[in-house]
């Protein structure tokens, strides 16, 4: 049973007063969640959620949550208004959506509900029954953190604790009879001074690095890239909910590999041949330079249409994977997107070479509908 328990992300969660409406609001959220879950496949394959992404919030359009009633078709109805203008003047305001049924039902009201990324990840987790990830070596990775924990008699002035200082001064003055209620002057002396003191705590921390690698050779078209984009959004969403500190790097490659930002990654024009080993080499260098495998949980994802330059390069890739990338990583994921031109050979080579290796996850994505199962393949192992 892959039960998903909510992870307290922020330990010092604000204690909220329970309001009368909360049960109803919660019930509504639950229904919304159910609806999203029900339609998750649609949301994933259409990718419409991506366009509605805010910082931590995704706005999800939900049809059919309202209660139906007998009502008029609005366009037939017309109405009365007030203002200037000649007969026949357009009113502006509500515009009908363009399209074949233009004007049939303008101003269609679709309820948009804000859902946090965390919640979305939970829904994804529940629907795909994703296990929670056991971070690798979490106890070996320590982060030092300083917390103010107490009060000290000595310290720098910048940490002076006014309230405690004056309390002490007042206490001393009253005890020694120096306090005059008529003239309530409290003057701290050196012994009254109090300072905040701190302790250094070491906390275990879980860091994760995702390296997205994509083949941008001539055979990867827009549809293929869209699939990669949608899939990576959901992978991001899930891993973000699992790790406190998530870094993402993007590598594109044809015959050469380049480190790019996410915008370039998804929008670059396709061209050239394919040498997969170039990307693996770059990933290897990146890890060695910036992300020590002992401190980071590393997730390389490689998307390609499976068409490599030649047998030599494939051999080189397999060696790179075996020697470095796979030992560095929690899992190595390869997604093969179907394209009209690719031979789809690479996944077969990988399958032959790593048939028994649990750390290598392979999936073929033939259409948008297969994005969800593919995510399940990649993340379903809980590593």
């Amino acid at each position: 049973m892959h039960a998903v328990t909510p992870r307290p992300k922020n330990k010092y969660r604000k204690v909220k007063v329970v309001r009368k409406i909360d049960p109803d609001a919660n019930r509504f959220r639950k229904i919304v969640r159910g609806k999203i879950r029900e339609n998750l496949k649609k949301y994933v394959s259409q990718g419409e959620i991506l366009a509605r992404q805010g910082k931590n919030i995704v706005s999800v359009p939900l049809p059919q949550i309202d209660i139906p009633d007998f009502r008029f078709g609005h366009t037939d109805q017309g109405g009365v208004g007030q203002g200037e203008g000649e007969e026949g003047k357009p009113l502006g305001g509500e515009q009908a959506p363009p399209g074949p049924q233009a004007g049939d039902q303008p101003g269609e009201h679709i309820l948009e509900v804000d859902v946090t990324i965390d919640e979305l990840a939970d829904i994804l987790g529940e629907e795909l029954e994703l296990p929670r990830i056991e971070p690798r070596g979490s106890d070996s990775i320590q982060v030092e953190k300083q917390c103010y924990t107490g009060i000290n008699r000595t310290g720098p002035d910048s940490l002076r604790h006014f309230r405690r200082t004056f309390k002490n001064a007042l206490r001393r003055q009253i005890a020694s009879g120096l306090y005059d209620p008529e003239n309530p002057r409290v003057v701290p002396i050196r012994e009254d001074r109090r300072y905040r003191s701190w302790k250094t705590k070491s906390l275990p921390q879980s860091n994760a690095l995702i390296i997205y690698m994509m083949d941008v050779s001539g055979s990867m078209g827009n549809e293929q890239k869209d699939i990669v984009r949608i899939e990576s959004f959901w992978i991001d969403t899930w891993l973000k909910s699992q790790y406190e500190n998530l870094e993402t790097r993007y590598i594109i490659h044809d015959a050469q590999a380049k480190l790019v930002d996410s915008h370039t990654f998804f929008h670059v024009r396709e061209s050239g041949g394919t040498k997969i080993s170039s990307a693996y080499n770059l990933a290897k260098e990146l890890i060695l330079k910036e992300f020590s495998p002992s401190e980071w949980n590393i997730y390389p994802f490689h998307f390609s249409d499976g068409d490599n330059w030649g047998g030599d390069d494939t051999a080189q890739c397999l060696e790179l994977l075996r020697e470095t990338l796979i030992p560095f990583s929690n899992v190595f994921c390869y997604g093969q997107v179907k394209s009209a031109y690719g031979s789809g050979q690479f996944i077969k080579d990988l399958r032959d070479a790593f048939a028994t290796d649990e750390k290598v996850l392979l999936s073929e994505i033939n259409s948008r509908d297969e994005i969800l199962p593919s995510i399940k393949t990649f993340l379903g192992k809980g590593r």
Partner: protein
Amino acid sequence: MMNNHVLTPEIEEWRETIRQYALDASLDFFEVIYELVDYDEMNMIAAYGGFPNRYPHWRWGMQFEGLQKQYSYGLSKIYELVTNNDPCYAYLMRCNPLVDQKLVMAHVYGHSDFFKNNCWFSQTNRKMIDTISNHAVKIRRHIDEQGLEVVEEFIDLCLSIEHLIDMYSPYFSGSEHRSEEDKDQERLDANGSRFKLKPYMEEFVNPPEVLAREKEQILNKIEEVDNFPSEPQRDVLHFLLHHGQLKSWQRNVLSIIREEAYYFAPQGMTKIMNEGWASFWHSKMMTTKILDSSELIDYADHHSGTLGSNPGMLNPYKLGIEMYRDIQERWDSGRHGSEWDSCQDAHGRTDWDKAEGRGLEKIFEVRRTHNDITFIDEFLTEEFCEQHKMFTYKFDRQQGQYVLDDRGFPEIKNQLLEQLSNCGRPRICVESGNYGNRGELLLKHDWSGTSLRMDYARRVLENLEKIWGRPVHLETIIDGKTKIFGYNGSRHEERTGS
């Protein structure tokens, strides 16, 4: 907890003063209890439709979230919230400046006066806060017994037809409009107690077998009559309550929803008049008495914010207040009656003044007897429409948007009345409870020029089928043809009717 809601001394002082001004203006209101609330409490009460206690349902939560979101984006905030109850409860937003609190208090006295005196509110329950709390208790009990999902689902079904009531029925008490159940009951009662006698005589004078036979006859007769409503019944909920295959808890839930629908109906029937009346009085009291000169700008800003309309749209507050002002002026100067109507002389009309001075008296009379429809029908004039630059608009299919259609007075008036009739909802009645002699339900849409939205209507039929328990049908007109839409629990069908 309650202490948080007590007015600050400053507001309390103003409340007393404004109350006195309202009395001086001869407003006759239910006592108003003001509570000071934070924005989320305000949104909460607003989400509950103005009541602090309601039965559990997700849609309150949905409305609440919507309000919270709008408020936090600064799109809208609720100024006033007032409940038709004796005493009236009204809520003031804690963070509002004093001038707003004054405005809202003055406005609320107008509403309270309207609730108390307008005849269309005369049949509403004035202890509705208690009643609605009791409803909440009852529904909670059903939830405990039946389970949340079952009850919630049934509430959803009922809500989809909650507007199918006969809004005008509370105002008739003639025998014709008594509920059929009462009539049945009467017939049965009359039978049982025909002769009041000493008990030992009973058996001889009213032999039991005769009584039983008569009772059966009456029951048969009732059955005959009740096979379908003898005339189309507007109160669909009532029909379902008495003829639907419902469990007792379902019947109770449905009757609660029906009762609340009847309670809220007059507010829909008098939107323009009610808001206009309250705005009329807040504006009068604020500008003549309450306002401090330093508050003038803020007041003007907020007042115009409430009364302003989007370009091209009609604001009920604005229409209402201007109509009252117009009526007051007309009855002050005597611009009404046949003499005025027949005067064709432009100069004569502009200079018309008979110094009747009956304006104030007239608007008080109007607020007592009219609802929005009769109000517009009787007092909307051609001059008024011209002065306020009113027009009708319609949807232009070629341009794919709404366009200004006509500035003619009859068109405007017709359009307005059309929009207001039945609160802008389609008129639906039960035509038969034994359609096709198969115990199926037939509803009829009383078509008045506008078609139904069929995607919604189909979903309503699905819900209705679950309540009725047998196939349901709806007769309506689409593109000039009579159509009958049916749903039998698994499949929709569509037939062209006769």
